[in-house]
């Protein structure tokens, strides 16, 4: 069993100390929140893309469903962080079970297509169902509570909430990747057919990877309304899925850490670019094309997963 090495601990310590940095205004703290949240979701997508070789074009649905789970509970007066996360796990888990079952039944390309189609249906459903607010979604949500009387109301508290989430998600991914299950995922990525001939029920493994990735993403989605105070159908747009994918690609497939950095980097890029430029999507598309053609390894590159040197498990 692998334990996060000292490098990871150091990074998390630094992140924990970030709010103390000079110039950390409310704006930057919330930007940091967005960056870490996006990074965590990109990392969970990497479990699917980088390690198992499955591209999910509908990951935004897991994210959005988590957000709506929180929003719906909060609308009805349930503000507990734990209740919201629990609800998100339930809802996203059920959805992911159905999607992954159909999407993994056939070879790789169907996964991409079916996740996309399912996500579109979910988006359409939420966009046009007035019970959930239609295109406006659910707005004006209150702050979440950690425990009775303990509100997560300041940017500082929200930041620490997402930091804990990121740490937990990272630890989970690290353990899974180093486990037997994780090794089989890599084998499936490398040669799915061969893995079957070794006695592995490949569909089950793919479903497992998809569920873990979806649940982690769903928790991230559940946390989002605790910062933004709303949940809208736009969270489930395929363009959002595209942004997750681009974060993974920027950071580097199969590295876990790379996508966190990629996600953070992309969040900040988006914040700067979309306010300046109207043709933001051309930039995204262009970046994707350039990365695929010239920098397929992303910033961190595809690393060897079967590291044998002990203590090398982190960062």
């Amino acid at each position, binding site marked *: 069993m692998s334990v996060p090495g000292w490098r990871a601990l150091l990074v998390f310590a630094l992140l924990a100390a970030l709010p103390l940095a000079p110039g950390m205004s409310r704006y930057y703290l919330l930007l940091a929140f967005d960056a870490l949240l996006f990074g965590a979701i990109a990392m969970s997508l990497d479990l699917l*893309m980088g390690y198992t*070789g499955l*591209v999910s*074009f509908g990951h935004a649905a897991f994210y959005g469903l988590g957000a709506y789970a929180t929003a719906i509970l909060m609308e009805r007066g349930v503000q507990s962080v734990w209740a919201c996360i629990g609800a998100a796990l339930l809802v996203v888990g059920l959805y992911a079970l159905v999607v992954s079952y*159909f999407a993994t*039944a*056939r*070879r*790789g*390309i*169907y996964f*991409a*297509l*079916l996740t*996309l*189609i399912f996500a*579109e*249906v979910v988006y*359409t*459903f939420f*966009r*046009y169902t007035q019970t959930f607010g239609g295109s406006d979604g659910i707005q004006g949500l209150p702050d979440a509570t950690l425990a009775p009387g303990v509100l997560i109301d300041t940017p500082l508290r929200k930041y620490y909430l997402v930091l804990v989430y990121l740490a937990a998600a990272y630890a989970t991914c690290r353990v899974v990747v180093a486990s037997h299950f994780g090794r089989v995922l890599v084998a499936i990525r490398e040669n*799915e*057919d061969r893995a*079957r001939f070794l006695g592995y029920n490949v569909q089950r493994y793919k479903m497992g990877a998809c569920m873990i990735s979806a649940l982690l993403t769903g928790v991230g989605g559940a946390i989002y309304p605790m910062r933004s105070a709303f949940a809208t159908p736009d969270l489930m747009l395929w*363009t959002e899925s*595209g942004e997750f*994918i681009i974060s993974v*690609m920027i950071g580097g*497939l199969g590295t876990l850490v790379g996508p966190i950095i990629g996600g953070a980097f992309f969040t900040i890029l988006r914040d700067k670019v979309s306010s300046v430029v*109207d*043709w*933001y*999507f*051309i930039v*995204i*598309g*262009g*970046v*994707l*094309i350039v990365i*695929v*053609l010239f920098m*397929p390894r992303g910033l961190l590159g595809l690393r060897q997963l079967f590291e044998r040197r002990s203590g090398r498990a982190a960062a």
Partner: protein
Amino acid sequence: MDYVLTILLPQLLHGLVFGAALGLLALGLTVIFGLLGVMNFAHGELYMLGAYAGIAVIGVTHSFWVALLVAPLLVGVVGAVTEMTTLRLVYNREPLYGLILTFGLALVFREGARQIWGGDMRRILPPFTGSTPLLGMTYPDYRLFLLAASSLILLALWLFFTRTRAGIVVRAAVQDAEMLDGLGVDVRRVFTLTFAASGALAALAGLLLAPVFTVYPQMGVEMILLAFIVVILGGMGSMGGSVAAAFVIGIAQSLFSLWMNPQRVAIAIFGIMIVVLIVRPRGFAGREGVLE
């Protein structure tokens, strides 16, 4: 009886035309996937560009017919250039890269169209107006023309794939891409031509349908989603299956629209897909023997 003639039948005919257009798109996807190994996420955008290229050509020549000839060619060229400069580089890599590449291309094309022509809905006027009395109901001439045109196109394609050497080779290669190596053909040129031709056909469909629907940058997105469903239903690698499924979906879409709002129609189509996937996981005509 009145209902059947005045409402149901025209909608059915409309569904046939829509199904034919979907079939062109799905066929293009199937051929590109079978031959090049890439699922072309940008195919809907080629359809969309066909309509916009048509607008551009009509703007210059004021002739729909000239546009019908030139626009697909223009889009074909765009396709060829795209294939040569980008797709070609990812054939030997894991399939994941091709997916992401075409996804990126789709974004660029879509937003590019929006930048060039604006995001508003545009109209292409049908080249002729007027309607013809048919079975007790008047039917717009242009729609009749569409019926005829789509039948012709599909017939031509069928002849191409069954009677010409090139077509037979492509069809066989879709089933088994490796067989091309043994034939002594210039594989790179075949790939480029195939991609360009598929794009041109998609563009043709886009332009032909434009006077019936409106033209806007997102028009390709809805088509490609339906085309994906068609391909899943028809069974990957089966060209005949794709076309058959396209008609089923096209007619279903058309008929459902009579009775449900657009969102419910989408969910109904999706429901059809789920049911088929449960009952026949490989789709109508999926290839046996491919490790699914």
